[in-house]
């Protein structure tokens, strides 16, 4: 990635965009899921995306590491535009960590192996190096003692923290979270959110699709509300929650905050 090195040197301010999305449009068959999305994400910025189901919020962040292919518009991640070039896609993916709703840990590998697999095979680290890094990050998410167990032996909250550690082992520049707490029992949501808050405090750039409005309030620099494949409203958390501008946002907030 030549362009990264070029763009890195002159502007290292906190406001330089690491993700630039321009007039993004995406269809599933004939269904228009994303309509004219424009979004810039700055380095170290934390963005929470919320909205009703089917609003396209998950699809949007899945477009950023090309788990979904868009048909129109452009997405530039860290100076590289996403095209059909498989090599480029893999390079971007290795720099963009992702955490899924259903964890998607590899059940046939131990927790530590889950963390070290990609560093070894994609980053070409030695096993010793990767193990060290894996243990360091498992310690960070506070489950180093589970390193040699299999994912199936862990609770949902622990599994999701392993998934976060696995993504962090690639030392990504951006982290995408796709409803990371939606599949968890209420007792376990807290431990995952705490891990995410710590990660945010460490300065990671984060895009989080979630309905955890407490988390949004505490961590987000910007909250984005999506509906019908469009960005309806975006603002800093205080203004977003206290003075929502559109009727649609007000309705949504009243529904999720007063249940």
């Amino acid at each position, binding site marked *: 990635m030549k362009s990264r090195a070029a763009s890195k040197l002159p502007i290292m301010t906190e406001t330089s965009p690491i993700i630039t999305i321009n007039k993004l449009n995406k269809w599933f068959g004939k269904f228009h899921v994303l309509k004219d999305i424009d979004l810039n994400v700055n380095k170290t910025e934390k963005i929470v995306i919320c909205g009703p189901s089917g609003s396209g919020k998950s699809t949007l962040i899945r477009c950023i590491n090309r788990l979904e292919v868009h048909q129109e518009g452009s997405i530039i991640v860290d100076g590289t535009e996403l095209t059909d070039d498989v090599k480029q896609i893999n390079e971007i993916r290795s720099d963009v960590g*992702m955490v899924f709703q259903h964890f998607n840990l590899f059940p046939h590998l131990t927790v530590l192996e889950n963390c070290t697999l990609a560093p070894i095979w994609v980053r070409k680290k030695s096993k010793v190096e990767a193990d060290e890094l894996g243990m360091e990050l498992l310690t960070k998410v506070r489950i180093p003692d589970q390193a040699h167990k299999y994912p199936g032996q862990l609770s949902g909250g622990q599994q999701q923290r392993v998934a976060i550690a696995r993504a962090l082992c690639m030392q990504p520049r951006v982290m995408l979270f796709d409803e990371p707490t939606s599949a968890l029992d209420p007792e376990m949501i807290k431990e995952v959110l705490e891990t995410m808050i710590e990660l945010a405090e460490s300065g990671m750039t984060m895009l989080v699709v979630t309905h955890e409005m407490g988390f949004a309030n505490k961590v987000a620099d910007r909250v984005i509300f999506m509906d019908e494949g469009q960005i309806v409203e975006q603002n800093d958390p205080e203004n977003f929650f206290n003075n929502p501008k559109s009727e649609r946002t007000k309705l949504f907030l009243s529904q999720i905050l007063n249940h």
Partner: protein
Amino acid sequence: MADSTLKFKKLPDRDPPENTIGWIAWIRDNLFSSTTNTLTTLIFVYLFYLYIPPFIEWAIINANISGTDRSVCDANKSGACWTFIKVRLEQLLFGLYFASNPEQIWRPIVAFSVFGMLIVPLVIDKTPYKKWLLLALLMLYPVLFICIVYGGVFGIPVSDTGQWGGLLLTFALSFVGIIVALPLGILLALGRRSEMPIVKMMSVTYIEFWRGTPLITILFMASVMLPLFFPSGVDFDKVVRAMIGITLFQSAYTAEAVRGGLQAIDKGQNEASMALGMGYWRRTILIILPQALKISIPSIVNTFIALFKDTSLVSIIGLLDLLKMAQNSSRSLDWNGYDIEGYLFAGFVFWIFCYGMSSYSQKLERKLDTDRRVE
């Protein structure tokens, strides 16, 4: 919650009631739990009583094993004639060439012994260097087998494959069928799920063609029609032709077994490995296949077992596999009339191999079952 005296108190764990555990409880629950069950149990006990003791009497107690010709058996008709099997054992196991050349018989014996020495440690859990053993079995063993059994190198005389027979032939056909068809089948299964339309179409066509054709037809075609496509003088070995036919046929079945496993893998697995920047082959080899093959072990082994038994169909193109050899021997003038013993022996040998494969697959399944493994 208003009552502040309400306290949670954990009750101590107790053992289950005495009369629900142990073998008496098991027999009561499983064999005599209802009138129908009791009746069924009694009927089966009666049937066992009716048929098992006479069989044991015939097969073991009164059986003949001494002597070298049929006179012993003819004198004692109340027992099985294992003398027949004993006298014809070399022929049944190694075929006509090695049976009629006693000085060469060490060759199949060495081949089978080496196979045993490779397979036994592979089955045992704690063997070190298992990967290398497996590699030796898949790569070096076939070479060794050809050198020793076929010959033609190191001054070992060539054994005509047309004279191969018995267990040796059954083994050679199945071994080749299994080890070549597995990788081929995996590739075909991946091809069938490929996003590239031409690869997908070709895989589907291949699988459906070979799966839709009976093995007998394929063997006939390999034996009768294949030579028509080649100039006269080019004469493919009959055994090699059978091997090719069996392998092509088997790979289609293996492909479908593997595809079953691939389909069972959650697409999140692929997405998670994509998100880590892994390319297609890394995802497939490191993440997808280990899980998919684990799931498809029962059905893959099922196709292996079916293949092992189906190799006996080669008798229709004139090859004398274990079953045909047993049949032929019991129809020879020397042993005419003792075909039950011949068939029982052949069946027993088939059973040992198939049961071995089946047990190993079950063991493998349990070992790889990481989802439920508790330390």
